[in-house]
């Protein structure tokens, strides 16, 4: 059933976010075409639109995650979702997986657009594109070898994964808590309040733990090491605070559990 839920969730959300990616592809196409036929003003306008589309992809996906979750579970569509022969956990898991994929795609599209526009602008002003690309890769210049670069990329990937999951957990928890009887009185405003309170509290806690607990991964010119003596704020090297990462994992689990419990006991479909 989870597979069917995910499939239908993709179909459903594609109708909202699909347009923004379609717009990105069309705009990028126009931009490249204008570059090839050397029509500068079209190329300039298309570049601006493409940059805006990149930012819009992230924003639209973020708001779609909130609106779709709210509408499909606690609006009229809730009559369909909550009478399906599935558990609340399955509903939550399907929505989380699909939202995660869309958020990841939106970040990837936005980053790709910004890099693409940077390289494109370099080419437009007549600079060496290869040199510009090399400049970006110099970010990894301080790392000793390929194996270390791969490890750093994996650690950064895990952190991004956790940050997205935590963001989705915060959004779902806020929407669900706002749909309990007590909070319903505040209307749509409740979602904003609950989200910002949850978000700020967790960011403060996570940042404090990351910076101050001496439990971290330190990247040096000789490789990657665990450190239980140095916190992130004390380090002058590239450091990943493990305490903050663990906190994000625990916070995400707690928020998903809270959301599931609320769905099963406190939220009534209007």
């Amino acid at each position, binding site marked *: *059933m989870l597979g*069917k839920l995910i*499939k*239908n969730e993709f*179909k*459903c959300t594609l*109708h909202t976010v699909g347009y923004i990616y379609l717009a990105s592809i069309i705009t990028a196409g126009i931009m490249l075409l204008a570059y090839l036929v050397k029509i500068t003003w079209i190329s300039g306008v298309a570049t601006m639109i493409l940059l805006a589309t990149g930012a819009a992809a992230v924003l639209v996906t973020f708001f779609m995650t909130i609106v779709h979750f709210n509408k*499909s579970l606690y609006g*009229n*569509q*809730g*009559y*369909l979702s*909550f*009478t*399906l*022969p*599935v*558990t609340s956990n399955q509903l939550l898991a399907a929505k989380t997986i699909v939202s995660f994929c869309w958020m990841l795609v939106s970040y990837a599209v936005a980053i790709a657009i910004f890099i693409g526009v940077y390289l494109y602008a370099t080419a437009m002003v007549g600079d060496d594109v290869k040199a510009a690309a090399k400049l970006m890769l110099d970010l990894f210049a301080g790392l000793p070898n390929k194996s270390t670069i791969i490890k750093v990329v994996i650690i950064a990937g895990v952190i991004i994964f956790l940050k997205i999951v935590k963001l989705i957990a915060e959004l779902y928890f806020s929407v669900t808590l706002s749909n309990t*009887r007590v909070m319903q009185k505040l209307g749509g405003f409740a979602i904003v309040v609950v989200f910002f309170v949850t978000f700020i509290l967790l960011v403060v806690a996570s940042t404090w733990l990351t910076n101050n607990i001496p439990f971290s991964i330190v990247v040096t010119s000789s490789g990657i090491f665990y450190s239980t003596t140095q916190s992130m704020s004390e380090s002058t090297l590239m450091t990943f605070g493990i305490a903050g990462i663990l906190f994000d994992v625990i916070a995400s689990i707690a928020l998903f559990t809270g959301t599931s419990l609320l769905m*099963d*006991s*406190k*939220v*009534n*479909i209007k």
Partner: protein
Amino acid sequence: MSDIITVKNLSKSYGSHQVLKNVSFSFEENQIIGLLGPNGSGKTSLIKILTGLIHDYHGEVLIDGMAPGKKTKEIVAYLPEKTYLPDWMRCIDAIDYIADFYADFDKEKALKMAETFNLPLKQKIKTMSKGMQEKLQLLIVMCRNAKLYVLDEPLGGVDPAARDFILNTIMKNIPEGSTVLLSTHLIYDVEDIFNSVLMIGQGKVLVKARTEQITESGRTIEQLFKEVFGNAWQVD
């Protein structure tokens, strides 16, 4: 025969307003039950509890011996008062969606019925009239071979011709041995189809009887309804 619905000491409140007060009743399977009561009597709250949409209640509710949950949702086909299908869907998407989740959904029958109902398969729900959307929802429910059909005010707000259409569709498509719980406050048109009635008002069960028990007393269901609820409309 076993009980398809069992409700023991059920209470439900919205804040300080209690809509169901220690309600108890049970119904055997294989019958059409009329859930009757004026607007605001607690019919929809009771239905939402039976279908697993409301969780914060007190008391015991069993559907075919099971508490409302994943298992009961497999055997209950529910038609809510509201239109609930996502508006991006086309008629065929809605049929495919339901076919995906319910093993008892007869897709072939649904496609034939859509043609009979003049519902174009490729038409988007957002471009359908309210009547067409209601037809589609009725189709989706009645193409399931469910053990229990819960129909919340399917006749509310429709013209007499549509009422006949809805009733015919329901009657023609109930599988052998299934039970229908149909809530309504429009009794005249439907009283002939009921085997049992449950009248609720002011959060309590006021009447629970087999139809023959009522008719044996020389009254129609509508007359009994007026006797039971008539006082609510009297002005001193």
